């Protein structure tokens, strides 16, 4: 699960990381009030940022500066309600505009190959780390946290010096360790600060000081760990979750919508991807990834069918079940039940092999379903059926 910037910043603050203050507003009036407060407190300008989970919000015009309360009101009015890659902006983050001296990148990620937490940093902040990795791989500093002990002080110091943050050593070490702590405390796959920045600030006595602070934050949570973090489950943004995704999740299905016309219902993630690939190979386009999971019973099959048919682009459905824990006859019963209730008539090609396949075949034959023996044959039949509908 990806969470919004403001929520990610709260997780960093909870671990003691330096994050400049911010406010979240869901109305123009609230955004103006927040801006007034920051400007009155001495900020020269405020930054107003769309709170959406899709990348590229800056390029889309979702991040703007404002030098006065009136301007903040105008900017907030323009950003709230704006459409960024299909997502309507419902909230903005308002914060004092930082006087940036230099930008950096720092992140903690799960390194699958090393099976450890990897800390990554670069003195080239503000740009995508993938671009830095492609252009100047030597500019990225890497350190693995100890699998038993976490990130040790000396590792954090080495890391900070290698990033060129020796001048801000104490804070840099605290941030590096704090990233790993944030990751562990919340079961995150990724905790990214981009940019991490040295900013110029006026101290209460009027003197100008330089400080290392986290200006943006991105956190991705491990879905498998959400049951033990009920507070984090609440950070899932319902506005950015497709209704079909939600229904699938609540029914215990894994569903991902795609652009094609052939709906797919499969047991097992690897086989579901393979089924999509074979639809494409047969000349069709898959409408979705859908894994009904192991041991699915009739009601879960019926829910899967509803979700697939809710997509108006679907003109044929391919059901591919390799029974192991899943019983073929249970799936067949679910399909028969679902077809009796379905609102529109879409051709369905069913292939069920493995556990109780013979019982499934008898049920499907009686109900006059189109069946297939091999996966390749099933894909070809589904593509042909979809073409007949289109013709």
């Amino acid at each position, binding site marked *: 699960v990806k969470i919004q910037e403001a929520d990610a910043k709260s997780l960093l603050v909870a671990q003691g990381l330096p994050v400049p203050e911010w406010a979240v507003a869901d109305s123009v009036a609230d955004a103006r009030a927040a801006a007034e407060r920051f400007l009155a407190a001495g900020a020269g300008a405020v930054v107003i940022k769309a709170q959406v989970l899709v990348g590229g919000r800056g390029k889309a015009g979702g991040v703007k500066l404002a030098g006065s309360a009136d301007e903040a009101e105008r900017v907030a009015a323009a950003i709230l309600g704006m459409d960024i890659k299909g997502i309507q902006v419902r909230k903005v983050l308002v914060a004092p505009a930082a006087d940036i001296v230099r930008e950096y990148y720092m992140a903690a990620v799960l390194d699958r190959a090393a099976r450890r*937490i990897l800390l990554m940093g670069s003195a080239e902040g503000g740009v995508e780390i993938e671009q830095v990795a492609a252009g100047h791989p030597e500019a990225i500093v890497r350190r693995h946290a100890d699998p*038993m002990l976490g990130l040790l002080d000396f590792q954090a110091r080495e890391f900070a010096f290698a990033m060129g943050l020796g001048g801000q050593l104490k804070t840099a070490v605290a941030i590096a360790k704090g990233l790993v702590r944030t990751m562990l405390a919340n079961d995150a796959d990724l905790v990214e600060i981009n940019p991490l920045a040295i900013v110029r600030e006026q101290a209460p006595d009027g003197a100008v000081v330089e400080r290392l602070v986290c200006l943006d934050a991105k956190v991705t949570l491990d879905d498998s760990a959400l049951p*033990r973090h009920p507070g984090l489950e609440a950070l899932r943004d319902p506005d950015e979750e497709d209704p079909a995704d939600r229904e699938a999740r609540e029914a215990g299905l894994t569903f991902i919508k795609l652009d094609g016309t052939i709906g797919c219902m499969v047991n097992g*993630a*690897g086989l579901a991807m393979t089924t999509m*690939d074979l639809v494409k190979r047969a000349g069709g386009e898959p409408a979705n990834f859908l894994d009904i999971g192991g041991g699915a019973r009739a009601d879960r099959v019926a829910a899967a069918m509803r979700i697939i048919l809710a997509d108006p682009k679907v003109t044929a459905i391919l059901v591919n079940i390799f029974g192991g824990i899943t019983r073929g006859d249970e799936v067949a019963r679910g399909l028969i039940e679902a077809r009796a209730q379905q609102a529109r008539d879409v051709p369905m090609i069913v292939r069920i092999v493995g556990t109780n396949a013979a019982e499934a075949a008898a049920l499907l034959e009686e109900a006059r379903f189109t069946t297939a023996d091999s996966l390749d044959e099933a894909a070809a039949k589904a593509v042909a059926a979809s073409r007949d509908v289109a013709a």
Partner: protein
Amino acid sequence: VSILIGPDTRLVVQGITGREGEFHSRAMQAYGTPIVAGVTPGKGGQTALDGSVPVYDTVAESVREHGANTCCIFVPAAGAPDAVLEAAAAGIATIFCITEGIPALDMVPVVEAVARAGARLIGPNCPGATSPGSAKVGIIPGSIHREGRVGVVSRSGTLTYEAVQAMTDAGVGQSTCVGIGGDPIIGTTFLDVLQLFAADPGTDAVVLIGEIGGAAEETAAAWAGEHLTDVPRVAFIAGRTAPEGKRMGHAGAIISGGAGTAASKVAALEAAGFRVAGSPTELPALLRDAGYGG
């Protein structure tokens, strides 16, 4: 004549009295796998599988009383990492963790501890392994196999069944089929299994079944290109049509930042001399094209 499991396997099942544990233990026993004990804390002294298997409170007792050397874990996600650590501490050499949905960060210290104990972990979130004719550990249906000399390694469950069934239907038997699991952090990798197959006199050819996400297929391919030059090798990669940035069911199956694509894996495998199938049904024919005569 097989890897990981075989005639010398003495299996203890952790979670044998649970619904899943009991169901699959029966299937393992029916296949001929010697299940010497079960473990469910608090149920020590009882028996399972119609009185045929003694149940203990701890894995250590099953090792002491019956010489268990392999375990299969059906414990729910919250307790599974601890079950792995208990098995390693008790001296179990080969640990299969079937459990799905373990938080990835839980496995970081666990895989390290297993390595330090000198044990081997397969999984988590894996279907287990079968050495046809001698033993099956996990949840792979026994009926899909045929004894033979092709080693199969896969990140998936039902996709593996599909591929193995296609091989069996074509008369191509298997030495051992291993499902290594679809999670981001797993104990045994493609590379580890290829190395075991390379050293196994009972394996003459290998089939690798991968999917999008990570770079484990590429790493294994690079090694195979140097060390398995005489071994017929074929592969299948799932997820050619998977979009970037979406987790395709398995926690580990995600393309991020342009890395982990099917295209990259297919290219690495082909460069290493693998024949890559467009469908699992093509695997047996490709094995024969690659020079496998079994």
